[in-house]
C-alpha cells in the first residue's frame, strides 16, 4: 500500500478521471483549485445553468432589494416599479467596487460611494459626475469622459432572471434555456407541488459555514442511504428509512433530483433497525410538540420531498417544515449554506407555530441536519489527507444511473457526476 502523498500536479494541467463511469469520484474533484475554477465558470456562471438567488416574498415592495450570490459573485436582487425582479452584479462598472454593502434595503437607484456613479434598478448607468468635464470661469472645460463614452455600454452586469411561482433564479448566461426547460419535465411537477403559485411567507434565515466542498452538500441530499443510518430521529420516528415507500427521480441529464418518501410508524423492524446503532428503541420525546405532524392537503401522499436543483439550491419539504437551502461556494474546501424557512399565506397561526417547532430538526442546530454539516467536514478532511490518489465509492445498487422505486441506492450521486464529467470535460 502506497502511503506517501502523491506529488502535486503541474499548475497548467487538470487531473484525469481514470475510468469511464461515475461511481468512483476522485478526491481531486473536491480539493483541486483549478478544477474548482472551472466549476465556477461552467457550473455557476455558464453552460445554461440557472442559480437560485431569492424567494419573491423576501422582496414584497417596489425598491426592496437583497444581496445574494451566484457562485462566488455577489448580486443584487431588486423589485422594479412594475413588480418584476432584476438581478444585477454588485460590481461598479467604473472601478469594480462592490458598491452595495447593506444586505437588505429599499432603494430607488444604486450609487457607488467611490465616484458616485449612479445606476437605475435595472442596472443601466443613469449618470456620473464630471462626465462633461468641469467648466472654469473663463469657459475652459477641464477633463470629462471621452466624446465617444457611451452610457449604454457601462451599466452593471445584468443577469437573466426567472421568477417561478415565488422562486427567483438568475443566470449570467444570456443564452440559457427557459427555467422550465432547465428543470425538465421529470422534476418540475415536484416543484409545482410546493410552489403552485400560492403566496409564501418568510419565517427567517439561518446561515452556516461548512468547511467542505460544495458538491458534498448536493450529494448529501442525493444520498437516500444515509438518513436512516446517521440520523436517529429519522430511523426511530419513521421519518426516513429503508422500509418506507420511496422513489428517486432525476432529470434527463442526471443533475437535478427528487428524493420522495412516505413516513411510516417507525419503531423496530428487523430489516432496517437491527444493528443500526442510531436506532433508539425506547426513545420517547418529553415534549411531543417537536413532532406534531399534521398532513396538508397538497401533500397528496408523500410526507417528504428533497429536491436538489443543480448546482445552487436544495428545496426541503420534510413533514410540515419547508425551506430553501442556498449553496454559496467559497473555494474548493468551503461553502456557506443559507437556509430560508417559509410557509404559506394561507397558514393559520397553529400551522406557522408547527413549522417553526419542526424547524428544530433542520438548520445548523437541527436534530437531523446538524450532523450532515459535521460529516461533510470529516469527508473533506479525509480527502485532504489522502491527496490526489483516492476516490469515493458510490456503488450501492450498482454502477449505472437510473431512477428507482426504493432508497437503497446511490444512483442520484452517480447521475450528478455523470453530468459533471460531461460539462467539465474531465
Amino acid at each position: 500500500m502506497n502511503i506517501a502523498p502523491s506529488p502535486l500536479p503541474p499548475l497548467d494541467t487538470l487531473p484525469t478521471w481514470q475510468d469511464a463511469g461515475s461511481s468512483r469520484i476522485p478526491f481531486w474533484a473536491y480539493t483541486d483549485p483549478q478544477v474548482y475554477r472551472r466549476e465556477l465558470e461552467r457550473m455557476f456562471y455558464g453552460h445554461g445553468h440557472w442559480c437560485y438567488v431569492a424567494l419573491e416574498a423576501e422582496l414584497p415592495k417596489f425598491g426592496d432589494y437583497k444581496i445574494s450570490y451566484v457562485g462566488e459573485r455577489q448580486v443584487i436582487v431588486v423589485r422594479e416599479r412594475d413588480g418584476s425582479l432584476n438581478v444585477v452584479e454588485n460590481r461598479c462598472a467604473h472601478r469594480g467596487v462592490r458598491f452595495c454593502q447593506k444586505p437588505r434595503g429599499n432603494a430607488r437607484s444604486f450609487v457607488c460611494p467611490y465616484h458616485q456613479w449612479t445606476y437605475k434598478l435595472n442596472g443601466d448607468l443613469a449618470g456620473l459626475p464630471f462626465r462633461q468635464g468641469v467648466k472654469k470661469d473663463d469657459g475652459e472645460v477641464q477633463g470629462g469622459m471621452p466624446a465617444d463614452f457611451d452610457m449604454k455600454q457601462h451599466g452593471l452586469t445584468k443577469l437573466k432572471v426567472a421568477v417561478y411561482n415565488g422562486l427567483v433564479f438568475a443566470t449570467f448566461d444570456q443564452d440559457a434555456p427557459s427555467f422550465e426547460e432547465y428543470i425538465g419535465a421529470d422534476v418540475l411537477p415536484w416543484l409545482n407541488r410546493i410552489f403552485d403559485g400560492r403566496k409564501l411567507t418568510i419565517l427567517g434565515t439561518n446561515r452556516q459555514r461548512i468547511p467542505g466542498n460544495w458538491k458534498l452538500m448536493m450529494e448529501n441530499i442525493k444520498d437516500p442511504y444515509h438518513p436512516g443510518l446517521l440520523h436517529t430521529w429519522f430511523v426511530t420516528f419513521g421519518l426516513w428509512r429503508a422500509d418506507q415507500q420511496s422513489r428517486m427521480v432525476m432529470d434527463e441529464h442526471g443533475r437535478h433530483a427528487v428524493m420522495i418518501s412516505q413516513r411510516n410508524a417507525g419503531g423496530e423492524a428487523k430489516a432496517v433497525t437491527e444493528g443500526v446503532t442510531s436506532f433508539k428503541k425506547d426513545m420517547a420525546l418529553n415534549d411531543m410538540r417537536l413532532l406534531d405532524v399534521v398532513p396538508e392537503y397538497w401533500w397528496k401522499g408523500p410526507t417528504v420531498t428533497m429536491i436538489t436543483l443543480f448546482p445552487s439550491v436544495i428545496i426541503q419539504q420534510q413533514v410540515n417544515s419547508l425551506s430553501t437551502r442556498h449553496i454559496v461556494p467559497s473555494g474548493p474546501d468551503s461553502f456557506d449554506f443559507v437556509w430560508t424557512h417559509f410557509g404559506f399565506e394561507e397558514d393559520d397561526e397553529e400551522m406557522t407555530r408547527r413549522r417553526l417547532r419542526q424547524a428544530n430538526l433542520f438548520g445548523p442546530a437541527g436534530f437531523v441536519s446538524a450532523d450532515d454539516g459535521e460529516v461533510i467536514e470529516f469527508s473533506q478532511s479525509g480527502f485532504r489527507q489522502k491527496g490526489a490518489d483516492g476516490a469515493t465509492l458510490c456503488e450501492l445498487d450498482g454502477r449505472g444511473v437510473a431512477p428507482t422505486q426504493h432508497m437503497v441506492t446511490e444512483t442520484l450521486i452517480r447521475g450528478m457526476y455523470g453530468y459533471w464529467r460531461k460539462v467539465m470535460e474531465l
Partner: protein
Amino acid sequence: MSKLIRPQALPLSVLEAQYYVDQFNATYGDILDRGDYDAWVELFTEDCLYKVIPRENHDAGLPLATMALESRGMLKDRAYGITTTLFHAPYYQRHVIGVAQILNDNGSEIRATANYSVFRTKPGSVSEIYNVGRYLDLFLREGAGLKLKERVCVFDSEMILNSMIYPI
C-alpha cells in the same frame, strides 16, 4: 475616576437583583462549559422559553430561530440529542458573560440582559470565537434563587461555524 455615574440612583433592591443575576449567569456558563446538560435543564422553569436566534431575524421581526425550545421537556429532548443522538465532533465551550443590566424587577420577576461570547476549542485545534450575542432574560424568583422563565440568545455572528450542537 473623576465622576461617579448615578450611584445613588440604584436602590438596594436593584443591587440585590444585580448580584443574583450575575451569580446565576456565572453558574449558567460554568454548567454549559462543563457539559452538564441535565443541570442546564434544571436552571429553567417548567413552561420556559429558550431560543437561540440570529440577530438578522430578531431585528427584522422574523420568528425563525436556530434553536427554539418551549418547555423544560423540550430542553430535556435537546439534552438527550446532544448526549445520545446527534453525531458531531466534540468541542469545548467557554462562556464569557458580561455584567447584567437589570431592566425591571417587580419583586417576583426580573428582566435583564447581558452580553456574552462563546469560544469553541476542538481537540487538537486553536480556540475560535464561536458565537457572540446578547441574552434577553426573564427570571423568576424562586425561594432564595432564580430560575429562567425566558432566555433568548440573540447572536450577532453572521455565520455559524458549521453546526451548533450545545446550547449557548
